[in-house]
């Protein structure tokens, strides 16, 4: 192999390595870097804010745990453009709405975050009836 061939092979290899370094993140924009898919967490409370936006929406709600500790939870949801297609609107979850949520906990130590959550009324009934997705919301993507 001549020198030029080596330069080409070498630079392609380096580019490949640079790309590979990003692969776990790039592969499918998984939620895994931020949320632990092997665990489940649940909470119940009232909505404080619903940020209906791209590229990810966020739902905040105040909840009290078994020990009486109050915390504000954050649920990461799909983009506004996708939620819309499942029947959700910015008005679907007004502040004060009582909800129950169960999903994957955030990996951040001491935080109250979840993703890929099933969100329902406290009695388990769906929040939006008849949408393509009634209660199980998409994971971030």
């Amino acid at each position, binding site marked *: 192999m001549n020198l030029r061939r080596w330069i080409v092979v070498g630079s392609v290899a380096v580019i490949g390595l*640079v790309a590979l370094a990003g692969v776990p993140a790039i592969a499918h924009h998984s939620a895994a870097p931020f949320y632990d898919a092997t665990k489940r967490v649940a909470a119940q409370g009232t909505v404080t804010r619903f940020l209906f936006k*791209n590229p990810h929406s966020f739902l905040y709600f105040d909840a009290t745990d078994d020990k009486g500790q109050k915390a504000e939870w954050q649920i990461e949801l799909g983009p506004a453009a996708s939620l819309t297609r499942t029947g959700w609107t910015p008005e679907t979850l007004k502040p004060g709405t009582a909800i129950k949520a169960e999903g994957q906990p955030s990996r951040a130590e001491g935080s109250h975050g979840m993703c890929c959550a099933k969100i329902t009324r406290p009695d388990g009934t769906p929040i939006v009836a008849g949408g393509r997705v009634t209660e199980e919301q998409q994971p971030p993507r």
Partner: protein
Amino acid sequence: MMAWLEGTGLATWVRESPSLWAYPTILTLHTVGLGIVVGASAVVDFRLLGFARRVRLIDLSPLFGMMAWAFLLNATTGILLFIADATTKSRQPVFYVKLSLIFVALWCTFATRRIIREGNPAPGAESAPSKGGRLAVLSLLLWAGAITAGRLMAYL
């Protein structure tokens, strides 16, 4: 300043519109433009490194015009994506890494264009100019780095 940018009607539309023509389309165009800029640039770079030697370097020069239009598309869609989330993105170190890599990569592209317009080696010439070869390797690495930094903005 960043909060003001983020609060403009245009930024709010990009961020909050439920339409597929808003954020998803802008992000898609940003990716298509990236493909053209970096793809065309890679064609020139690989030619400089000795691939497809029967193609005269000067015959590749119209690709620079293509890169310019695609870059314009990406600067535009990039600004839209930035203002939609200006307060967060302006605080991300990896965003400035991405911009720096793009600026140096652009410098490489201009330098490569100069070499090609001045050099004009004959078809089948044995060797590409060695300075062109070094620029080509640098350009490939810088664009790969810029793409990586851009993608990492979603995670860091």
